């Protein structure tokens, strides 16, 4: 953790239009050059936090005391400013490469174009840069993969291409929303390793949004645990097993473990007071 945070969010609340309850209530955190995990179940508002930071939810009612990204006040930033930020200085990796890559264009061209949107350079230079980046995400034959269409690459390869695309402009903040849930276990680790190495090497601030406690335990420094739109607990990832909040403990216990006892899994008992509690 460094002293000057990349991202500083205080008291972020957000309500979708037509929804009775806010999806996010009073979430506060700061992010330095570190890997922050946001964990929670579906409906806990974890993805909404990611999207709110990127200001991808124009219809929603959003309020916060403070939301700053490297000196830019995100609350007041216009859409034009956001367009310059998104993809250049902050970028997002989504769950399924099948839906985030344009199916009728070559993968490499999409990577190169993403670069040219933010950096003025010749097509040739963008091409070279894209190939180099594909190599950096450990794609063995980047020139060949450059010319492939999205349906011709596997899920793991597709996600690596997405990572290449998102890291090409050297962003300071990457939000990865369930980056590996659509991938097989054997590929998952490789992809996470690649992302992890690049993030460390380049000093990028990473927000990893996931439902998977194992994933954040292994690939994050700090973890926020969200329940019903609130952060119920903030922990160092290595202290995850020493969590004190009953929700976190419940989630950990409900996870079946290899070699674990075959007794019935402890079922999470939800306590209505969790939604009332002041944020940790």
């Amino acid at each position, binding site marked *: 953790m460094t002293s000057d945070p990349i991202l500083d969010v205080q008291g972020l609340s957000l309500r979708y239009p037509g929804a009775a309850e806010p999806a996010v209530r009073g979430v506060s955190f700061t992010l330095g050059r570190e890997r922050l995990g946001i964990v929670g179940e579906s409906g806990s508002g974890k993805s909404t936090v990611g999207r709110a930071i990127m200001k991808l939810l124009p219809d929603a009612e959003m309020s916060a005391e403070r939301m700053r990204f490297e000196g830019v006040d995100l609350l007041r930033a216009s859409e034009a400013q956001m367009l310059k930020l998104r993809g250049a200085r902050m970028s997002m990796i989504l769950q399924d490469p099948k839906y985030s890559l344009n199916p009728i264009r070559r993968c490499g061209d999409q990577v190169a174009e993403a670069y040219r949107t933010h950096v003025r350079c010749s097509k040739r230079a963008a091409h070279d840069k894209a190939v180099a980046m594909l190599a950096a995400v450990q794609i063995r034959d980047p020139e060949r993969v450059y010319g492939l269409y999205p349906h011709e690459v596997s899920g793991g390869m597709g996600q690596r291409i997405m990572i290449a695309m998102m890291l090409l402009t050297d962003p300071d903040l990457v939000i990865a929303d369930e980056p590996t849930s659509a991938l*097989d*276990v054997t590929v998952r*680790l490789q992809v996470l390793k690649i992302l992890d190495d690049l993030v460390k090497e380049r000093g990028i601030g990473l927000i990893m949004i996931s439902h998977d406690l194992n994933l954040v335990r292994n690939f994050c420094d700090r973890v926020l645990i969200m329940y019903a739109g609130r952060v119920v607990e903030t922990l160092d990832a290595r202290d995850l097993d020493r969590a004190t909040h009953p929700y976190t403990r419940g989630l950990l216990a409900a996870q*079946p473990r290899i*070699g674990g006892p075959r007794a*019935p899994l402890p079922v999470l008992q939800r306590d209505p007071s969790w939604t009332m509690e002041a944020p940790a």
Partner: protein
Amino acid sequence: MKPLRIEKMSIRFGAVTILPEVSFEVAPGECFGLVGESGSGKSTVLRCASMLLGTWSGDAKVGDRSVREMDLMERCRTLQMVFQDPYGSLHPRHSVRTTLSEPLKIHRLGDTEERLAQAMRDVGLPVDFLDRYPHQLSGGQRQRVAIARALILEPEVLLLDEPTSALDVSVQAEILNLLVRLREEKGFTCVMVSHDLAVIDHMCERFAVMKAGDIVEVLPREAILDGSARHPYAQELIAASLAYEGAA
């Protein structure tokens, strides 16, 4: 309780062979796991065995009877299936009552009300949920309804196609506990497809590792930890799962 035997099951779509030749046996009352990467043909095995796909060769036998010899009604009372996506496996315009009473009507079983109430109690749902529609239920509740629907015909064999992979961890725990309890109470033979080795380890005595449509190795659950897997892909899968869980 009856055993399930899959003999030389193979299927191809045009030039693509999905399953070259798959054979395995499941003991009476056993829960057998199928693991492998996506596209390895795990789900296809279940769809063939239940005759949802009809164009395969080889045989699947429950006890001594082949699923091909059974007529539709007998097959339905022998084999049932629970699907992965609880949002897609319930008809959006059918109430829980309609969903559960359809099989009773088709098979001309009496005491509908009694059976419906029992089915709801079996899966731990309040009986008055019968008048709800799928969009009024949570993911876990929907999956309970799907399990109730599969079990209402009292099948010998239950095929589970990733029954918990679309659910949250805490809900997954509830559904897994439910399946364990129902298996003890009703004693059906069970085949479970999953990509999660921890779930397989929790539920199954033995499991088969599949790759590109082939079963590369059949292992007892102990093999996950004692390292007795021989096939390189099985070793890789187990190693990756252990590393991922952070237990290694």
